[in-house]
């Protein structure tokens, strides 16, 4: 039976909770979440009535369940531990997010390939027409030599073993080997391809990457004011940095690795010290 239990109650009491009341709270794997009624708030009376009559409450708007959540009948099943987040659909949007998106904001170090993600890979082998690229997943991704901008059978791209590649996945599921490409659907590179010489590649957690790539990230803005530099973020937890001198590059790498565990004041102190020197 569907029971309406407020969020403050302990998990041990039976019954799934409504997703909307759980936003920002920690959820554990195995919990079930109810989707709110499409009629909107203030219809608790009618909802209870329908429950008494035995009819199943079906949400009319389409809801997208993101990473960390799974569909389980009419409810959402949590598969990762973290905080539950929700995003309302944008006003004039193309209807893709009608009803909003729910997901679990979790932290992990191991990357699982996902279609559409931009990642940094290291070329490990070159076999005929195919490159094998290590992306940090369970198996190396395959990259065809024709998947570069302006590549033809005669005009092959200049890729060697050990090169860094910035590309996106076109095929990434648990049943098949992941495949990546370095062009978009129009055939243009858009910044993808072989990443240039020098620079430093290091690994961080996946949560930090998402935090740094958020639109309002202060860390990136402050870093940009220090000195001329170039950064590439891969969704597989890899960051590549390059600055004019080796010392600047190393400072940058250390700052990015450490800023995950620093508070805002500590970070500001460090940046002010750096900008002085």
């Amino acid at each position, binding site marked *: 039976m569907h029971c309406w239990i407020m969020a403050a109650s302990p998990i041990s009491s039976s019954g799934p909770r409504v997703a909307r009341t759980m936003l920002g709270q920690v959820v554990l794997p195995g919990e079930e979440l109810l*989707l709110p009624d499409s009629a909107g708030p203030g219809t608790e009376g009618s909802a209870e009535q329908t429950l008494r009559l035995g009819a199943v409450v*079906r*949400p*009319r*708007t*389409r*809801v*997208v*369940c*993101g*990473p960390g*959540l*799974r*569909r389980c009948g*009419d409810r*959402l099943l949590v598969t990762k531990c973290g905080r539950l*987040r929700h*995003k309302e659909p944008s006003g*004039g949007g*193309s209807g*893709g*997010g009608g*009803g909003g*998106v729910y*997901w679990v904001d979790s932290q992990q170090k191991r990357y*699982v390939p*996902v*279609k*559409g*993600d*931009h990642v940094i890979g290291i070329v490990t082998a070159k076999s005929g027409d195919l490159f094998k690229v290590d992306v940090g997943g369970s198996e190396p991704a395959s990259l065809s030599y024709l998947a570069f901008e302006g590549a033809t059978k005669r005009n092959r791209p200049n890729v060697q073993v050990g090169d860094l590649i*910035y590309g996106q996945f076109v095929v990434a599921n648990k049943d098949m080997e992941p495949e990546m490409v370095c062009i978009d659907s129009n055939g243009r590179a*858009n*910044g993808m391809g072989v990443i240039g010489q020098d620079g430093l590649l290091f690994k961080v957690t996946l949560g930090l990457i*998402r935090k740094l*790539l*958020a*639109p309002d990230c202060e860390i*990136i803005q402050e*870093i*940009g*004011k220090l*000195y*001329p*530099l*170039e*950064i*590439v*973020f*891969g*969704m597989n937890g890899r960051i590549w940095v*390059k*600055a*004019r001198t080796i010392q600047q590059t190393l400072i940058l790498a250390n700052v990015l690795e450490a800023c995950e565990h620093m508070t805002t004041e500590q970070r500001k102190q460090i940046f002010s010290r750096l900008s002085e020197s």
Partner: protein
Amino acid sequence: MTLRTQAARESDVVRSDNIPLGVFPCTFGETGGGAMEATSKPKLSKNLMRMKFMQRGLDAETKKQLEEEEKKIISEEHWYLDLPELKEKESFIIEEQSFMLCEDLLYGRMSFRGFNPEIEKLMVQMNAKHKEEEVEDVTMEADVSDEEMARRYETLVGTIGKKFAKKRDRAQYDEDENGNIRPVKAKKTFLKPQD
């Protein structure tokens, strides 16, 4: 129909050689055709009737009858499940494993303070695309200014005109210092001699 024409052809061949029929030891039929008899209509198999060349000569009615017979055969052979109709459960929940849909993340390549100008241009492009998807940039940046375009077209008229002008008229086109052909302003017409 086709049988008859075949038979007629064969008989013509024999007659054109001016050899009397009786000379040949083998006995042909009355029409001179093969082993087929033309007196009674032979019974043709269903498969033969279904072939394309047989269908052309048929009436519409016989065609319909053949089609119906075929459908009957097919529907009898069809297997079907004797189960009640299950209503397809429409799911209103879509599963997506990508974070790109959830959080509006910026583009992964960044460059600051002019380290890599191409990447900086790309940053502006990609982030603008991501923020304002509806507003499309209609005004394209013009590589060549309008004045220069007008100048080029002026000389272009002259160049193309020269191509189609006759040999005598080509001398009228004089070249600029830059090699641009200035179009001719006045054409030489017949001047009536004054008395």
